[in-house]
């Protein structure tokens, strides 16, 4: 297992009217992040927010190429990013104990925080297809180049972890600086992870190691 310190390349925020950042996703142009009662869009180049949609947003956020998925209380809602309308909803596998959310190859991946689990879920029914166990509280979940990464957050400590999607074995760890926690996690598909900063109201870009 490789272990190294996370390299934070950029810090966004805190933003006016945003007191917490939960789930994070990326639609190819904009970063979307969940902030309790709204989803906020951010241009990662300029660092300027591009507006927000009023929708319950308590934990993970994902993007399937067309729609946004957002965990709110005990459910996962499918949202039209153009109008902010909720199109459908399925039960979340952790029944409210859910944290991170990611989309990959036609299925949703959901972190269950204190249960230290990641579930693979059918996006139409919410049925659990598979469950991976971790040994730390799981927050954000993301896929990049066939690699499954998740964030951990216990107390005031966080790590980003690359794990084997079949066995749950930890392949690589990036340790965040003390007191810097990671809620939501999303990759930009290349060299960067976007990390939600919880109650700090910040978003951080972390370099993905190669």
């Amino acid at each position: 297992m490789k272990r190294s310190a996370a390299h934070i390349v950029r810090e966004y925020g805190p933003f006016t009217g945003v007191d917490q950042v939960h789930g994070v996703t990326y639609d190819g142009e904009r970063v979307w992040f969940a902030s309790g009662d709204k989803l906020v869009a951010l241009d990662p180049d300029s660092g300027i927010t591009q507006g927000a949609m009023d929708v319950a947003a308590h934990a993970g956020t994902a993007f399937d190429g067309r729609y946004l998925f957002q965990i709110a209380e005990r459910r996962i809602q499918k949202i039209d990013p153009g109008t902010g309308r909720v199109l459908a909803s399925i039960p979340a596998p952790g029944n409210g104990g859910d944290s991170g959310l990611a989309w990959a190859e036609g299925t949703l991946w959901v972190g269950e925080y204190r249960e230290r689990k990641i579930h693979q879920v059918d996006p139409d029914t919410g049925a659990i297809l598979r469950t991976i166990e971790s040994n730390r509280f799981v927050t954000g979940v993301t896929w990049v180049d066939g690699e499954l990464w998740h964030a951990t957050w216990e107390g005031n400590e966080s790590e980003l972890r690359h794990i084997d999607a079949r066995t749950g074995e930890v392949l690589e760890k990036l340790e965040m600086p003390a007191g810097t926690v990671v809620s939501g996690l999303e990759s930009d598909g290349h060299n960067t992870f976007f990390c939600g900063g919880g109650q700090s109201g910040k978003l951080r870009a972390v370099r993905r190691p190669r």
Partner: protein
Amino acid sequence: MDSLITAAARALAAGDPLGALNRVALRDDPQALALRGIAMAQLGDFERARPLLRRAARSFGPREPVARARCVVAEAEIALVSRDLRWPTKALELAQATLQAHGDRINAAHARYLSLRRLLLIGRLDEAERALASSDASSLPAALRTIHWLAIAGIAMRRLRATHARHALAQATHDARQAGIPALIAEVEHASRALAVPAARLLSGGMQQPLLLEEVEALSTSGRLIVDACRHAVYATSALVSLGRRPVLFALAHALAEAWPGDVSRHELAVRAFRARQVDDSHRARLRVEIGRLRTELRALADVRATERGFVLKPLHAPGVAVLAQPVDEKHAALLALLADGESWSSSGLALALGSSQRTVQRALDALADAGKVQALGRGRSRRWITPPVPGFTTTLLLPAPLPGD
């Protein structure tokens, strides 16, 4: 943090404890327990809130010391508001140190002010004043600044510094409005009213006169020799002699000051100081000894001279003598004065604050209850005492957010 915890914490922050409970009522993980505890406290159910917070503190893991410390702070705050002063201060000190070490400056300050308010409540003014002097509130949130100024006002009032108290209360009013917490604003208003009602009675030359705190302050710098029955002390501008632990000497000084410029007979002094029904030779012998002791104590302020029938007080420099008494002449005035803050007290809390035994306090409370002057709530260990009528019960809980943050 997970989805429902976030939703519940948001409901709590928005002042909707029932909404928070709806979301986490059936969960027993530490975060849910902490939120349930805080919600219960906001709903006024302290009996349920405290065990929930204690369970939450116990079940947070070794990597979550900050969350655990916040639960300890919340539990201590509930104890303070319910006037249960026997909570472990050590745990609060440790929690404060943990919060400070992890950079949670605001909750660390919150913990510090809880310790300080407890000191104030049990009358350890010097310690409270030292702690206040070393804390800078200017960078804290408005709610904590209000607490800071209220503590300063509390000390100033007990130390008879009316101008100081008025200034601190003006600051507290300003900060409480900025914090926008109605209960806190009400608490400041309640404290401010104390400046407008008599703080003491002046007995001088057979006359009585109610005094406001400002007038008491003016009196203490008037140069007169004051025998103060509110604080059990004798003072003039030059010096102060505390007789708090010498009740017989104070009773003698009190009797002599009341009669000044006249003298008091040996018989009357013995009756008042020794509560004797019949005065015999042994009382007279004891009186000589006690007068000697009083003379030693007061030597910087006054002389006690023998007259034909008894003794007379002769102030050394002061132009006059006055007695300052409790505003109501009531046997249990000190007890009622504590209860007058409108909070519910446990008998052990009252005993701690008065520095007397719980049994004495219990007897006094029973007597006052029979007279309809106080009222008991609850049974057994959770029994609390209040003065009727209950004026809206100001229990200002600021409660730290129990969850780990950045």
